[in-house]
């Protein structure tokens, strides 16, 4: 299967801090890839570099062979990458439907077309009953799904989801997992997701990439990655690696 998104030797420094250092990975068409790692590992920075919100110091980002470095966030969106924000950013005073409509207008110039598309997306993320509510009045789980809907409405080739399950209760997490799995199954949408909720990562990902202190330390199938001593060490400290000498 061909690579849809490929990241090569991506690096970013903030003053002295190596936020992301020579990170390379790829997301094949139609796959769900998890990006995990402890706080401060450089996951969100990596997202911002891909999405054009930050300019990398070095490295390449390509979507289906097209170079994306140097594009503005709106141009990256036009190229086919949609992202969500870890701290959700709804258009607070607009209704749920109008929030999604704004995303849908990206590829549909006529408001009526875009609205029809927005309604379909709202149904897909199970926000139908709340379509006429102001976004500001939504609860966190609903806001997370709205964030997903806005991104989805731009009709991307790949979704970048930054902790869309953080802060959700287990039942809400399962609901989101269900929505994402159905999306991937029905439309073949490729997804790159940053996630701390391990059972969601395990349930969704075809492939997992682990970052620690800005560097990629491991990648592979979810079940293999969680047994990787380097991964256990970075999460729990070296003392917890099975077989390690204390």
């Amino acid at each position, binding site marked *: 299967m061909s690579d849809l998104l490929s990241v090569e030797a991506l690096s970013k420094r903030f003053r002295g801090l190596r936020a992301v250092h020579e990170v390379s990975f790829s997301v094949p068409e139609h796959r769900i890839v998890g990006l995990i790692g402890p706080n401060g590992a450089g996951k969100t920075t990596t997202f911002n570099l891909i999405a054009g919100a930050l300019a990398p110091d070095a490295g390449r980002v390509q979507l289906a062979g097209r170079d994306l470095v140097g594009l*503005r966030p709106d141009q990256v969106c036009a190229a086919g990458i949609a992202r969500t924000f870890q701290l959700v950013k709804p258009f607070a005073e607009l209704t749920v439907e109008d929030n999604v409509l704004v995303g849908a207008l990206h590829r549909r110039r006529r408001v009526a077309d875009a609205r029809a598309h927005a309604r379909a997306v709202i149904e897909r993320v199970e926000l139908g009953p709340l379509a006429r509510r102001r976004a500001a009045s939504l609860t966190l789980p609903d806001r997370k799904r709205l964030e997903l809907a806005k991104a989805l409405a731009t009709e991307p080739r790949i979704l970048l989801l930054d902790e869309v399950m953080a802060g959700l209760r287990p039942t809400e997490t399962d609901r989101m997992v269900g929505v994402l799995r159905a999306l991937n199954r029905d439309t073949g949408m490729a997804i790159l997701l940053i996630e701390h909720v391990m059972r969601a990562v395990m349930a969704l990902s075809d492939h997992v990439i682990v970052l620690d202190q800005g560097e990629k330390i491991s990648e592979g199938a979810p079940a293999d990655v969680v047994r990787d001593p380097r991964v256990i060490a970075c999460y729990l400290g070296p003392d917890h690696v099975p077989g390690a000498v204390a």
Partner: protein
Amino acid sequence: MSLGWPAELPRRGAVLLGLAGALLLAVPAFADAYLLSVLTLVLWLAYAGQAWNVMMGFAGQLSLGHTLYVGLAAYVSGVLFVSFGIGPWLGVWLAIVIAAIAGGCIGALGFRFGIRGVYFALLTIAFAEFTRIAFDHFAWVGGSAGFFLPVAQRTTNDLLDLRGTPTMFYYVILALTAGALVVCRALLKSRLGYYWLAIREDQEAAQAVGIDVFRYKLLAVVISAGLTAPAGVFYAFFYNNMYPEQMFAITRSIEIILGAIVGGIGTLFGPVLGAFILTPLGELVTAAVDRAGVNVPGAKQLVYGGLMVLIVVFLPDGIWPWLARRLGLDGADRGPSS
């Protein structure tokens, strides 16, 4: 902040709007000269506030220098008429273009360098101020001594040259205000309008869903400035005189936006409602002070200031959203936490 004109305008709203329109159309039949002049001013402020609202209310970009566009348009159309014999209906288009270019320059400068919020507002003041100073020394249009259109007591109406009775001017500004309402409603319901609202709500999120923020913010300033220009043309032909220190005064910029703030920023009817509340209130205060025989300079401003405090404390979204809810004209299904 509701849009003030929900997707399905309720029947009650249509009836109320029709009644208000009919009443305004009938005003010259029974109003005396004073009332007509007050209402002309009210409608002028409603129009200018509406134009300003495109930038602030829709796109979230604060301008405190909107009188720049009023002043430029007034001078352009006045000079064209007096020195070149070109009438206002032609002149207004050049005035619109020049105001839009001025807005475009300010917007491009500000947004190119990422100037946001209050700092952008300061930039708009600065441009209005140095245009005032430039016109003070611009001898060709009279400098600080002012520029005048020929005045004569008119009993006949010459709509083509915009020379006529107060009644004619009243109908012209009424038509302009109604037109601005229609234009703004169309803008709000367009792709452009939704993009503006998104930028107003969250610029970063807007960019993430593919909106070229620089371009659409620039368009907001250009369209708002262009829409303001007819107010300047009307001013020139109605008052027949312009002085730089009046046309480009920051107090005029503030006057333009007060109505929109009181009525409700970002709503369609807010600027109109605000003008209808503020101006008559100001007139009442002035009259009351006169009658009392005391000399209180700035009494009107004092009352405006007090009202502003009350609005900010009790109805921060403005009077219109509150009134619309009261009248059942608010279509949006509001959540429990709002």
